[in-house]
């Protein structure tokens, strides 16, 4: 039901954008609002699946890895949605900066994995 509502809102937005094009910035703002609303709805709908995955990984050997992966996917989505919104508003440079930030952030949360991998390889020496 939520999906239908969001799809309807997106269609309305798509119809409104050509009309509002003459009002500078309004169409971009509307697009960004709909995108953020859709993302919020997506997060709300995806939450049970992700929490199931996390609870399934709890107590297993890969619990810590699941947490890292969840953080990485969260950062990825936040970055992409924000960058798209910026791009829609015509702020391409800001979008590129956000994407770079997202990549750096994912690399940062991967650092413990790299350290663990290196120490694992060092265990062979």
């Amino acid at each position: 039901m939520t999906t239908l509502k969001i799809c309807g809102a997106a269609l309305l937005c798509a119809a409104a954008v050509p009309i509002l094009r003459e009002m500078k910035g309004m169409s971009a703002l509307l697009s960004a609002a709909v995108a953020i609303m859709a993302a919020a709805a997506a997060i709300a709908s995806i939450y049970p699946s992700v929490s199931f995955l996390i609870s399934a990984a709890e107590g297993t050997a890969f619990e810590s890895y699941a947490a890292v992966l969840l953080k990485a996917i969260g950062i990825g989505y936040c970055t992409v949605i924000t960058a798209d919104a910026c791009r829609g508003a015509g702020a391409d440079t800001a979008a590129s900066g956000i994407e770079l930030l997202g990549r750096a952030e994912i690399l940062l949360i991967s650092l413990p994995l790299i350290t663990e991998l290196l120490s694992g390889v060092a265990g062979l020496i």
Partner: protein
Amino acid sequence: MRRWGAAIAAFISALLLLSSHISAVDTHKSSDGSTQAMSNATSDVNDSFSELRKFIPEDVLSELPEGIFDGEDTSSSLPEKIGVKYIFGKLWSFIKRSLLPAAGNLASLLGMTALAASFGLLADGLSCAAIGRMFTLCATLAVACHVINTQVGIINGAALVIGSMTVFSNAIIPILTALLISSGNTLTASVTGAGLLEFTTILANFTEYCFLPLCRACFGLAIIAAISENGHTDGICGIVKKTFTVTAGFAAALFTAVMTYQTTLTAAADGVAARSIKYAIGSSIPVVGGALGDAIKGTAAGLSLIKSSVGAVGIVVIILIVSPVLINLFLNGAILGICSAAAKILGCDRIATLMAELKNVSGFILAVVALSTTIFIIGLSVFLKINPALSV
């Protein structure tokens, strides 16, 4: 007069021969008589047989049949105690013991692969390719971390087992060499014993300077192959494995062939020498010459029995040392193969590559351990097959 001179010379050579046999097994005591000396030699070699247990790892010692090192009855009851039923029973128990941890390992690796694949499906929706690649790298690193934690123990276990095998062989070879010398095979003992000791030294050096560094390099390559976007290192571990196993296999075959023909030639030479001495004793020493020859023959047969027992126990110990590791490596290869296939089905190509490369590394280790074991067993079998020169 000439006949007496020949008799005295033959007697002196017989005494020299006996004393050399006895000293070879560190049993040289005051020689009250040839029979007593031979009896001492036999009893001391039995002691050497019992001493062998000191070089057997504790976990293997507990797997050996009860009373295997108990005195005189050992040789007669040995074929029953360490027969086919015993060996296959032990192998089955090792398999049963390894199956549960292997199933846990499989479930854990499959779970991690499924988790990475699930998050990978979510990441497919990312419109930015760079962020998507970054996430794939993160997921691959997570899986690599999880996999490597299981693989380090297996590789170190394989290195340790080769070390244990080398230590045990270094202990058993001198005992077998001493027994061979006692049986009159002096030339054969020196050639075969030296050859096998040389081989164990080569194997120890090979493990330390070649096998382990290559495994580490293959591990590194496997991780690079998984992380690298272009996958240019794909299959390098497989190539290393094939090249190395073919070369090592050829070297092993060469070693076995050289050992076999050297042993055959030296055994023949020892046989001729022993026959000449026995003929000299039998024909030159009046009255007791024939009896002395028969006594030597009997003692040599006894020593041969002990040699066979020590060799057989040695082979069984090597099988018991190596079998758990071989079974683990085999199961590990199968697990990695299954996970690689599962990752491919789930669309995680990098994880599939990582698993496939690690499977190659596991196969490489399995080949090295199996090859070393085979050579040790062949070496000991060569020892066992040598007939005592004095019994002809």
